[in-house]
């Protein structure tokens, strides 16, 4: 497999380490120091789903790859699990920054 690194160009998959579903980026917010029991329960549920529940898609799948034998970038690779075709490769940090900005604007 070849992953087209957004900064470094096409690279062999052997340079990368695979982590899994890109939903691991969406870590739930902490319950806070003074959380009620109800709030704690809700947060625990959110963490449970975050850590253990995955969609098992046949088709386009966003996943995390780490360029360990390279520049140490974490990447989000959009890979078709049926054909292995890769349609998009993004720097995970860019997505994380964008997500944070979205979260801030909601507040």
């Amino acid at each position: 497999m070849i992953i087209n690194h957004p900064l470094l160009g096409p690279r062999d998959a052997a340079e990368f380490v695979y982590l899994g579903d890109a939903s691991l980026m969406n870590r739930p917010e902490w319950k806070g120091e003074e959380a009620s029991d109800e709030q704690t329960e809700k947060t625990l549920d959110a963490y449970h789903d975050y850590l253990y529940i995955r969609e098992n898609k046949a088709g386009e799948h966003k996943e995390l790859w780490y360029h360990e034998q390279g520049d140490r970038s974490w990447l989000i690779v959009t890979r078709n699990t049926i054909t292995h075709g890769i349609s998009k490769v993004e720097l995970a940090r860019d997505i994380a920054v964008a997500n944070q900005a979205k979260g801030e604007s909601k507040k």
Partner: protein
Amino acid sequence: MSQVNRLNSGNVHTAINREKTVSFKFNGQTFQGYEGDTLASALLANGQVLVGRSFKYHRPRGIFTAGSEEPNALVHLRAGAHQEPNARATVAELFNGLVATSQNHRGPLKYDLMAINDLMSPFLSAGFYYKTFMWPKVFWEKLYEPVIRHAAGLGEISKLDDPDIYDKGFLHCDILIIGAGPTGIAAALAAGQAGSRVILADEDFQMGGRLNSETYEVAGVSGSQWASDAIATLEAMDNVRLLKRTTIVGTYDHGIYSAVERKTDHLLQSDGKPRQVLWKIYSKHAILSAGAIERPITFPNNDRPGVMMAGAVRSYVNRWDVTPGQAVSVFTNNDDGWRTATDLAEKGIKIAAVVDTRSIEPLAKFPGAHIEMGTQVVDTTGRHGLKTIILSNGKIIDTDCLAVSGGWNPNVHLSCHHRGIPTWNTDLHAFVPGNDLPAEMYVAGAANGDLSLATAMQSGHAIANKLAKALGHKGRVKACAKAEDESTANSDFWFVKTDTKARSWVDFQNDVTSKDIVLAQQEGFNSVEHVKRYTTLGMATDQGKTSNLPAMAVMADNAGKTIPELGTTIFRPPYTPVSISTWAGRSRGKEFRPTRLTPSHQYAEKQGAEFVEVGAWMRAQWTPKPGETHWRQTVDREVTQTRNSVGMCDVSTLGKIDIQGKDAGEFLNRIYCNTFSTLKVGMVRYGLMLREDGIAMDDGTTARLTETQYVMTTTTANAVNVFRHMEFCRQCLWPDLDVHLISATEQFAQYSVAGPNARKLLQKVVDKEHDISNEGFPFMACGEISVCGGTPARLFRISFSGELAYEIAVPTRYGVAMMEALMEAGKEFDSVVYGTEALGVMRIEKGHAAGNELNGQTTAHNLGMGRMVSKKKDSIGNMLSERPEMVQDDANRLVGFTPVDKSKSLNAGMHFVTIGNEPNTENDEGWMTSVAFSPSLGHSVGIGYIKRGHERMGEKVTAFNALQNNTIEVEIVSAHFIDPKGERLRV
């Protein structure tokens, strides 16, 4: 007498060099051949028709094909450690001194004692493994399996280390062309002329494919002449790389192909060069021009030596000037089969008969030959070689070679490696590549169903031209060479139906007959995949290249279906067998993975240390002194010297991560379960890292060197994982934090200096301006200092051993010098360098957790560190470690254990039960994680997990060793066997 079947036809296009005679041995007998021969062509030239025994029934078998699809002619090639089993004689290039032996027989090849199996065949039918040898059960392992294993099978391995070198390499190209037959050469010429970077690969040692085996003309000259001229033209192009003797074995993602190049297989000695190279080829586009493979017609007793593929017979005659027989017959259902008869007749070989299943006008006449139209071969005779064929019209014809042609199958293999399904072509009666090809693969020529020479070459030329243009390569491409356009008329006659008991072989290599297939279907195996596995059809080295379609024809007929309705089996890499050595390449023995040496390695080596592998690291385990006869003596001494005075240990293998930025403290708060932002500059703190699920991930100390710089240590084993995890957190979870990480593991040599005299020793090497007194540099202090007159260093006052201890770090290049300086300074204190074993003893005596305790099953609560998990901040694992199941009152707790009878020793892995209870899973209360003999206490000590351990001090329990089935009484004690109040650390 030699080479009785070698022709003297004046064939100028033969590929053999009659000037160069080559001598070789087969089953101990010396034969002669010529340069350019394969082992198969040379054996045939010498009249050696019988070359092996079949897999199950030990039937005599001869050479069947002239290519890599060969099911029968498998031999041991070379001898001794170089011996290679299951080598196909049809592709083994002949060289002077080659040694080959036949496989799978006991006694001489001609009188194989195991041939009795053939008479036992009623008991060895499809699935006999599952039926005949079922009962009684114990007989399977003890009797049946060894007997069957001994009787069946193919070649034998040498059981010696492979003495040859194998390499791996990487190649890049615009267009990879797979197969250098007429199509591939036409494609390579077009792409090469356009200016594309081309790789043209072919498994044969002579490029040209079928052109070398046929008498067709191309561009007014013989096909083989045109091919060798074209190859010379390609060779002269800088942008074209020719890989002969190279098989493309697999199609992988994104234009990657794997290829095996046989570099020195055709030489007597490799002379230090790699024998084979496994290439990983990166291509923008690939053209599959792998040609077609001829398929047989199935008929009774069709497996006798002398029955061969018609195209192969033609190859032996045209390419190698060898006739496989003196009176050759042809059995065909298509026009191409006739070509064998005409080519042979032209060279003066006697044609005994042409038998065509079609009731059409004969395509040719041959003097003295029977021409039988609308007729079939219904049986054969000849024990060790074909003698006669019996026809459906009752005629019996004397013949010693039967050339069989059932039509040609496009070689779709590599087009199906991504689960592409080939589609059925009703004109060819064969599968052709479907529409779901691997990305950027194009199929040309016979592989795509363009069977005639002219159409094949044109398709290769056109596809290459188009791809090169699309890549923007604008070189002038010449027109495709003109070639003959022969008839490819054929029919769908698959197998001869008879009422006799005679068996018709479908898969020669696995001894599967048409009856086996019908039986499998009767027993309910309907899917092709199931029949394949039940009968072993299409398995082993040839993967059914000649047998799959004939078998499917039998299946379809029996099921009343068409072949495409049955579907196909799945093609997987490799295309042809690849030896394990080739896959391994240089990654063997010591080179299996890199070895990491510690900065003090040279020093330890000089002292005679024993080393131990710790991951990829080599660490000094202990260093024996003269007179010490047991490792325990050495380790006990190292511990005692350290605890009594001072000892040094190389701890550079621990991961070191430099963390910088104004948010470094906040970042560490979130990485560790305890707080780091409050750590004062110049101080060190122990940190526990959790996984998000609340399980302990790693631990270590982190020092704050400045307001914005921390240095973390991780365990040796987790250095890589922790760094990866931290980069994930930094980039993916908290990109807003101003923090940067870099691994500094290899940049520093770090030594622990431990023992009551540690400070006195260090004061001799640390430059005077740095105050390291107890007041100036208290327990858990850290700082940047200099040693030995200006060498930059870092000093950390931390202790794993429980003694007054420091860790000193210097740039790696000073590693050996620093250790020597420490030992020189330590002479007056009787200092010692201790190894990993003493390190382990001391940390167990002190009750420190390590890998055995942080085993991926334990929580902070189990470790007795539950209160370290801060509830005042967010950190990885903070939430889920609060789950009720993670903090139960009766959870396992880490405590110490001593044997009640102090003379007894403990074993790690022992399980605990309450005294009087049966040692079983139900009563299990925990386990011992680490044990050591404590020289300080004079008896064995252990640490481990036991339910509510912290509340059970003084209680005695049973420790059970399930491996040796013994028990021992132990007492639960504090894990801190040494200095429980920690006074030694602070003096």
